């Protein structure tokens, strides 16, 4: 299943929105945090995990999904949320802790829920897998259309939840796809130091489901593999596991000095940045020119700038609103 | 006319005895045929005892009493 021209452009567009969004967040995050880096200060307080470089995972998978499909993501969720169609204004306001945010500022950047497009994420490693399997079970029980996709990092495969949910999904043949974004690092610990197998797609065999690996952070290859896995889930043939070799071009979190990286790794990764690579592909295969590039870039920037303005202009919640929504 | 509540021979496979764990209706209560009136236990397994007829329950064997297959534990009249 190869992407057509419109799908390639869709993927590129969402990669651009995501990247520009993260670059904007990165700048704003540092406001009020210099010279003293105090996480509690500035318009965006708290932890911040940026997804620069991991856009191919999000767009290659979400190109096959509609709003009714369920996605659970990780503590590094922005690229997936954007590709899934989460309301960008309200997501940005949430990241700023504003009243207009998706949860009114109760969750923040690691707890983004948009029921309109069935997106959620969590700050606990591998925690989205159970809910994704449960949503898939819900569709199976109700005979309703829609599949679930759980995104996780390569560090998550060593969590108990990964193994439990892989087994449960397989034994119940649930319409769910597990997508490992393999950026090679669990904060500062390398994949090779933490994981007993070289590639996690091989773990799928232990649960009797197909496993695939995509190399070179290639959005088109992700599209093809994810398309097959999602089609398989839609057809009621059960779950799949996909591991995507991707690049974390930022630190684990903002303020990460990244001293654990081997010399030269960061430069090498930047030289393989998937966004210029995708542009080259469009130029080569889709007659992409300067005018198309200008138009799509302008549109992406406008969209992100608008969301950031919305967030900045929004009011903070009243402190007492903290007491609401514990129960509904 | 009175109908005995008898522990059926085929309620469990082994020959061991059972214990009445709970009467789900009181002595003298009105019961309908088919109502579960007692639970008996063989090891950890519980079995239901149902009223064989409608009428007034008379309890013969009490809770915690040991009973065997074929025993009359009460009647309905």
């Amino acid at each position, binding site marked *: 299943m190869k992407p057509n021209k419109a799908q390639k452009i869709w993927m590129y567009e969402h990669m651009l929105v995501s990247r520009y969004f993260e670059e904007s967040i990165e700048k704003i995050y540092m406001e009020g945090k210099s010279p003293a880096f105090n996480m509690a200060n500035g318009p965006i307080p708290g932890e911040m995990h940026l997804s620069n470089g991991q856009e191919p995972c999000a767009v290659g998978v979400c190109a096959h999904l509609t709003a009714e499909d*369920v996605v659970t993501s990780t503590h590094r969720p922005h690229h997936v949320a954007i590709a899934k169609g989460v309301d960008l204004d309200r997501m940005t306001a949430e990241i700023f802790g504003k009243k207009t945010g998706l949860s009114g500022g109760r*969750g923040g950047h690691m707890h983004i829920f948009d029921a309109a497009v069935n997106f959620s994420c969590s700050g606990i490693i591998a925690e989205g897998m159970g*809910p994704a399997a449960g949503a898939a*079970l819900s569709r199976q029980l*109700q005979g309703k259309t829609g599949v679930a996709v759980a995104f996780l990092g390569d560090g998550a495969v060593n969590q108990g939840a990964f193994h439990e949910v892989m087994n449960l999904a397989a034994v119940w043949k649930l319409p769910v796809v597990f997508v490992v974004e393999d950026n090679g690092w669990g904060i500062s610990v390398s994949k090779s130091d933490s994981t007993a197998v070289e590639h996690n797609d091989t773990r799928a065999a232990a649960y009797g489901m197909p496993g695939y690996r995509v190399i070179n952070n290639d959005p088109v290859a992700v599209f093809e593999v994810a398309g097959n896995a999602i089609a398989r889930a839609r057809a009621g043939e059960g779950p799949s596991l996909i591991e995507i070799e991707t690049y974390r071009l930022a630190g684990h979190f903002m303020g990460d000095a990244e001293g654990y990286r081997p010399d030269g790794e960061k430069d090498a990764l930047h030289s393989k940045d998937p966004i210029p690579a995708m542009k080259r592909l469009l130029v080569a295969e889709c007659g992409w020119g300067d005018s198309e590039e200008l138009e799509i870039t302008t549109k992406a920037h406008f969209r992100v700038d608008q969301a950031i303005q919305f967030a900045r202009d929004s009011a903070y919640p009243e402190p007492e609103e903290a007491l609401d929504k514990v*129960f509904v | 006319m009175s109908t005995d509540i008898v522990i059926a021979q085929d309620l469990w496979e082994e020959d061991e005895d059972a214990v009445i764990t709970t009467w789900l209706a009181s002595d003298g209560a009105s019961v309908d045929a088919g109502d579960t009136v007692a*639970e008996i236990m063989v090891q950890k397994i519980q079995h239901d005892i149902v009223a064989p007829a409608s009428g007034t329950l008379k309890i013969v064997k009490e809770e915690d009493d040991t009973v065997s297959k074929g025993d009359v534990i009460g009647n309905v009249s």
Partner: protein
Amino acid sequence: MSDVAQKERKLTIARAMAEAVSQEMRTDERVFVMGEDVGPLGGVFGNTRGLFDEFGASRVRDTPISETAFIGAAVGAAADGMRPVVELMFVDFFGVCMDAIYNLAAKNSYFSGGHVPVPMVLMTSTGGGYSDAGQHSQCLHGTFAHLPGMKVVAPSNAYDAKGLMIAAIRDQNPVVFMFHKALQGMGWLGTEKGAINHVPEEAYTVEIGKAKVVREGKDVTVVGITSGVHHGLKAADILAEKGVSAEVLDLRSLVPLDRESILRSVAKTGRLIVVDEDYHSYGMSGEIIATVAEQGVKLHCAPQRVAYPDIPIPFSRPMEQWALPNAEKIVNSYELMTR
């Protein structure tokens, strides 16, 4: 016709729970059951008996021994519009799945601004007294009630069990339904006869968060939940012989806690004893005494608690029985406080 009106229909808590779930499953297709051995076996504690035969393997699902997976899945199914009833066989097993419970089920409503509620029921067995030692005998009332975002109910009898279960299934929030093994009506766990009572056949609810005065009195208030209620009732009988009138309050819910009913009763009696099979420190008993203290209710004497000592639950019969709350300890507490 008077025969029909008077007809007694006693159930064990196990049967009452199964009946509640089955009645909701008949009227609401979103309700389904998941857990270990809940299928053909009918639950290790009998509370899903008959469900598999009536509703089949799709809606009454035996799971792998994988609490993190299936409780996490319940959260996802609830968020997607289903009403899962899941069983954590022993509450002591919460250690292998607490993340799904308190980081997902309890927080998703809040983190979604109320847009993604989690209408699920987590039923779990509590309590000891039958020499199962410290990994299968705890109550952990305080552990669950402490964490915001989950309602917590714990019935002392079959009538409340059915009504609370139906209320829990219909609730839009996650509800932890704790059932005490000794009250379950399973002969092999010992059976508290007082837990077996009349249960109407039709579906009804018992409001979550409402305590009940199960015995009126004027000299001392005994507050308890599950097994503690039965100890309190037995103590009240003994105290009555001594000319002391004890009021027994069955909390029925830990979250929300019916503080008003506690305060009303204690204001009347001026004396308070809290009974809890959960650990003594940092738990329900302290919370109730603090509630009374904060409100400045005038007491005739210092309040007392009869709770589990702060020790892992021992196996050996004399040690375990010594540690458990009982009626005699409540009577002794009363005598101590009024000395």
